[in-house]
């Protein structure tokens, strides 16, 4: 779709639910969308698909939505790429939103490109901020190359972006606020080329990163499995959530689920320890509001040292061995006193 007269076209948020529970990213995006819509003198609509989700329509109106397009149907209970993207694309053609925001969740990061490609428009991945520029166009900010870059979609509409959970705060709910719920009728059928047989939710191991008050994050500087294991030991002994940068995932030391940053998890610990990592923006933007930040890196010129409170210039592998020993000694002494 091309930009025509999108003066008062609405700002959309696609809601994200898992087994009927609304994910926190959705109200966060509605809150941000409301700010953008205010600047554009328009309103926020939410597309809410699932089964048994009526209650969420009320809470999303309380979060700032003026209108909810609700598909509440057993056929929509589980995410289906064809069905979900089909519903959203059809609605987008009919109601012509100027902006569509989606969560960088596992569903959102598959669904967003399907919708964008079918609408023939641009899509910016994992934004860390959004704003409206003087031309009324959405500035989409992402971290890159030790800084930030602004991306815009100047002509085609809608302008689309994904945003991770925790980038924007949860809005205050106003239960008095009124809004409209538009029911979307089926049938919701797919071509049958794809079928979800089962959705399995597993309990994550260890201390959940998202809520940990201490986070230990490791990067390429670990060098190998042995070096990585020392970072794991440090996180265990400090009862910290264990995070990592992309190189640690690429090396196979850590899971994708533990990656912190723009395309991973957002964390907000009191204390952050970054070990053997270079302080790339893609990682550092994932840490918000930490009271104390500490980094260990063998290169004094590493960019990580301009983003922390305390720095240790040492090879993390040999340093961690000493540090772990001293922490154990301290704990033993403390236990004996």
């Amino acid at each position: 779709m091309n930009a025509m007269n999108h003066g008062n076209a609405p700002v959309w948020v696609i809601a994200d639910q898992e087994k009927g529970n609304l994910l926190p990213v959705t109200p966060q995006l509605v809150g941000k969308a409301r700010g953008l819509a205010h600047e554009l003198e328009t309103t926020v609509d939410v597309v809410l698909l699932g089964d048994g989700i009526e209650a969420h329509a009320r809470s999303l109106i309380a979060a700032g939505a003026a209108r909810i397009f609700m598909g509440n149907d057993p056929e929509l209970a589980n995410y289906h790429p064809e069905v979900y993207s089909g519903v959203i694309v059809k609605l987008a053609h009919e109601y012509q939103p100027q902006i569509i925001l989606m969560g960088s969740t596992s569903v959102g990061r598959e669904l967003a490109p399907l919708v964008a490609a079918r609408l023939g428009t641009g899509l910016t991945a994992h934004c860390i901020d959004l704003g409206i520029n003087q031309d009324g166009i959405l500035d989409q900010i992402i971290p890159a190359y030790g800084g930030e870059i602004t991306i815009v979609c100047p002509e085609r509409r809608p302008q689309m972006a994904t945003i991770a959970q925790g980038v924007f705060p949860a809005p205050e709910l106003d239960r008095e606020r009124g809004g409209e719920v538009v029911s979307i009728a089926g049938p919701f059928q797919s071509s049958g080329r794809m079928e979800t047989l089962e959705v399995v939710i597993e309990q994550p191991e260890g201390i959940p990163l998202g809520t940990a008050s201490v986070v230990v994050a490791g990067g390429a500087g670990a060098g190998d499995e042995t070096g990585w294991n020392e970072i794991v030991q440090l996180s265990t002994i400090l009862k910290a959530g264990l995070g990592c940068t992309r190189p640690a995932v690429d090396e196979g030391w850590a899971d994708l689920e533990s990656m912190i940053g723009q395309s991973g998890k957002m964390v907000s610990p009191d204390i952050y320890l970054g070990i053997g990592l270079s302080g790339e923006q893609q990682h550092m933007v994932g840490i918000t509001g930490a009271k104390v930040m500490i980094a260990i890196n063998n290169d004094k010129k590493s960019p990580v040292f301009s983003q922390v409170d305390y720095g240790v210039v040492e090879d993390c592998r040999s340093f961690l061995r000493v540090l772990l020993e001293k922490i154990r000694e301290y704990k033993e002494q403390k236990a004996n006193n």
Partner: protein
Amino acid sequence: MKIVVCMKAVPDPKKASDIKIDPETKTLVRRDVPMVINPLDRHALEEALRIKAENDAHVTVLSMGPPQAGNIVKECLALGADTGILLSDPNFGGADAFATAYTLAMGIKKLGDVDVVLCGMASSDGATEWVGPEMAVMLGMPVVTMVKEISGYEGQSWEVKAALENGYRRVKVQLPAVFTVTRDLNSPKTLSFSGIIKARKKSITQWGFTDLGVPAETVGVKGSPTIVTEMRPVENTREVLFLTGSRDEKADQLVQKLVEVGVL
């Protein structure tokens, strides 16, 4: 079975932090960062080669990039791919994810009768994950992203496990289809000497803009819905205090610091 693996040449992720935004010019300063196979695409190729070893499959590697990206395609041939195609043309330059997906999709259409398209779930440089699913839309194929296991092949129907935040989904898909893969899928093998020797006989096909027969406004910077309007370096966010002394003394100070802030 005809398998296409889409491959991106990326700056070596271990050295990618050498590419910086110049604070004065607000443009990129690129030191000599070598180009390597996007790590996740390497897992896609490995899976294709595994399927080839078990079934009768032909593996084509398809990459879009500058002529130097040919080295990456060559490396894939040495790893065991049968055919290598490089989509390279000045007209393709400056493509965003959408235009890249379109150009690759047109390359796949030109190949014809493709059963499976594999690629990494993300690129290490742009960190977008859009090329796989957008190609699928443009090719009219179903797609499963973040595949961590291909658990069943039954003719034209595959069963895969795809990662979710806290778990996975099992999905059954009719071929032809696009799959984007995670690193859990397999452990890529390293280059072998015999592979390098065999690859000497294989040549890379290069397709340019005219070979694809598409309108100029659909590729490269013209075919890209999005553009970068500004780059800025991030300023120091905190004032660092370096712990000093011997390694032992630094460790003592750090333990003390951890006690002060209540971690120990």
